[in-house]
């Protein structure tokens, strides 16, 4: 047998288009680390994404990848996993991709509970299109000319929404701590069913103020919650800067198995004969 692969073996060597200092580099490193830690086969792992700075990640790993259109990564990933349950499928993207244009797929992926992992690299901004407000942008962030007084809208709470729509596994990481992301990601991949890993991943270019996150982010001490009501209370009350595995309440992944009579194409043709 060959020597186990190292994290760097899971990278493609293509140079990221990311700005120096972008949080997404940490996520890339964490993905490579988690893949190495789980000794995933590069041939049997697929990274799926939408469009955004974050969504460029698949090309930077050495695995199969699908870089689709804006907001639809989760749909591609679910179709792939249902058709090919033998594969490890990881979806990723940004807060704009996942919570704005892709919001509906997020809702329904949480409900449907296909066995995939979803990483959102949340920088509270549209990086790729040069700095507009996203659903998670603070209500008074006035750095975009498109919303010169700030978006004026209550920020979207990813964990609360994931919980309300039925995600069975919810965690949060921070780009300042790639080892933690790697650890959480390994757990997420091993979890049977939909796992949602929300990563605070700073955009140094359009939100330089996010370097302050370092001081606020802290790891959650307590055990992950298993009761939805308690988790909801936490997600409404918290600052959004607590990291770690926050909630975990497994349920059977989709599709369920059903006993059935197999049929051949001839049998089926028979149904159309007079």
């Amino acid at each position, binding site marked *: 047998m060959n020597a186990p692969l190292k994290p760097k073996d899971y990278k493609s060597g*293509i140079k990221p288009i990311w700005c120096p200092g972008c949080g997404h580099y940490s996520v890339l490193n964490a993905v490579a680390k988690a893949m190495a830690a789980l000794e995933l086969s*590069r*041939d*049997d*792992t*697929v*990274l*799926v994404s939408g469009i955004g700075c974050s969504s*460029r990640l*698949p*090309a930077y790993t*050495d*695995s*199969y*990848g*699908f*870089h*689709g*259109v804006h*907001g*639809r990564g989760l*749909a*591609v*990933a*679910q*179709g*792939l*996993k*249902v*058709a*090919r349950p*033998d*594969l490890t499928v990881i979806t990723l993207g940004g807060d704009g991709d996942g919570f704005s244009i892709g919001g*509906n*797929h997020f*809702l*329904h992926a949480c409900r449907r509970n296909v066995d995939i992992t979803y990483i959102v690299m949340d920088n509270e901004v549209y990086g790729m299109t040069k700095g507009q407000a996203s659903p998670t942008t603070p209500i008074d962030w006035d750095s975009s000319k498109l919303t010169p007084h700030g978006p004026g809208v209550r920020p979207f709470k990813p964990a609360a929404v994931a919980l309300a729509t039925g995600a069975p596994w919810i965690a949060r990481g921070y780009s300042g701590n790639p080892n933690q992301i790697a650890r959480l990601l390994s757990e997420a991949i091993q979890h049977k069913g939909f796992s949602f890993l929300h990563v605070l991943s700073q955009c140094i270019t359009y939100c330089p103020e996010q370097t302050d996150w370092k001081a606020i982010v802290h790891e959650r001490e307590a055990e992950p919650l298993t009761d939805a009501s308690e988790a909801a209370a936490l997600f409404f009350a918290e600052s959004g800067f607590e990291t770690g595995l926050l909630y975990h309440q497994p349920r059977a992944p989709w*599709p369920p198995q*059903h006993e*059935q*009579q*197999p*049929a*051949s*194409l001839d*049998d*089926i*043709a028979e*149904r*159309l*004969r*007079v």
Partner: protein
Amino acid sequence: MTRDGLSIAITGAGGAGAISCGEMLLRAWAAAGGRGLLRKAFGPQIRGGEAAALLTLTDSEDYTAATHYDLLLALDWLNFERFEDEIRLADHAAVVCESPGDAPEFIKAARFQDVAFKQLAADSHPEGRSNMLALGLLGRALELPVESLCELAEQRLASRPQAYRDAARAGIEAGFELELSLPRPAPARGEPGAWCMSGNQAAAYGALDAGIRFVAAYPITPASDLLEWMAGPLEQLGGHLVQAEDELAAINMALGASFGGVPAFTATSGPGLALMSESIGLAVASETPVCIVNVQRGGPSTGIPTKSEQSDLDIALHGLHGDAPHLVLAPLDIGDCVFTTGWAVHLAAALQTPAIVLSDQFLGQSTAVVSEPRRHRAEPGQVVASDGDYLRYRLTASGVSAMAVPGDSDRRFTADGLEHNERGTPSASQTDHQQQLDKRRHKLDAHEFGEDWAEVAGEGELALLCFGSSAAAVRAAAARLARSGTAVRSVAIRLLAPLPVAELHDALEGCSRALVVEQNHSAQLFHYLRSQMGVDVPLRSYARPGPVPLNPDELCEFINQEMLP
């Protein structure tokens, strides 16, 4: 009785059972060796509205929807006036009904025969229903064995209480006793081994037969029943169907499965196709096969969801942004839905691109009795990766590159909707862009599509061109004109994109003029053909929107008046 067989309209309030009466009658007729077509018409109500089973019973398979009915059986007169456009009676048609006095003005001229449906049904059994009485009555007129009618009814009611089945039998038998003077068709005498199915069932079967094992879709009229029929068999073949949250998810799920190497499919109608168009473009750019059946309905916008039209040709051909060559096909009749859908699945796989199949409500939701349909058999041969470095989007002579699927060892790549180089790495260079655009165009242009691109029939200087479901009316018109001494050629196009222009020129060799026939308002096929062809044959247009199906009468009239000397 019209030339093309006996046409019967059975109408009633929704829930009165006009449709199921028509369906059973057609099946019994088929079992006796007959051929026939059943078209359904509904009002906008979900239940309690009006419904009509519109039958054409013949001994051949050239089906066109009847323009005039020889026999109308009205279970009641609820909202009957809404059918004014759709149900016209032949001169001296017979009308069987309960209360002729309530019949609307526009059919007053017919020959009425009064039948006390409700009373007779109630007399036959406490649970007796008028539609079973009607079935018996019509079965007798068609000289069908009463036992076959009863058996069909029992099969259909298999899951219902015994009383229902008893009532059905009693009703049919009571109806069979009634002696009415009704028009009679030529006796049924087709070949045995016929199939009886709707175009939606045929398309679903064709897709499964061609290897589809993954379906993701969102319900929409008139495509839902295709999906509903497909769900069971697909699962029994080991495949999966996902009911998606919307059409955006449906098409992307299909792309995911296809990327995983599992042939994938979706079905929709106009509004859903519009929503899918961004991601169909992704299939083009990332070279991911997928088959999309679009069961067209009246447009634009929500339009007329329950009625047929051929007005989505434009969006199917040109609805993607950027330069996005892909496949567009159209089945020519109900039986052909099997072949054309299967071919589309195979072509999508062979050419690694999306294939849009333009069916419509008329094909999809009508039921026909047809000879065993042709199935598409895939050409063998897979593209093999050349030696050395694996390049997903390698420039090859055919334009097609080897497509690895996850699990293949050492062929890892990232599929991309961004412009890319041969490896798949995003690139904005003019050279890469030009090469990949050339490649995606060339793989379609260079493919040998063979003889099936169209059905060409007849001789003569006048050609009739059409696509999809208007083939029926065109063929019937051509036959009629030929009978009256005008030789006519008909070209029913099955492969719309890429259009085999050279073959089309050949097919029109010697023609001095051609009429392009289609069921839409803006003459979409006409303009498309003009955009693609040179000017050898001057084209004229006959384009009429839905919802009433195109019929040979109007075509013959137009041709006689406008195109013959």
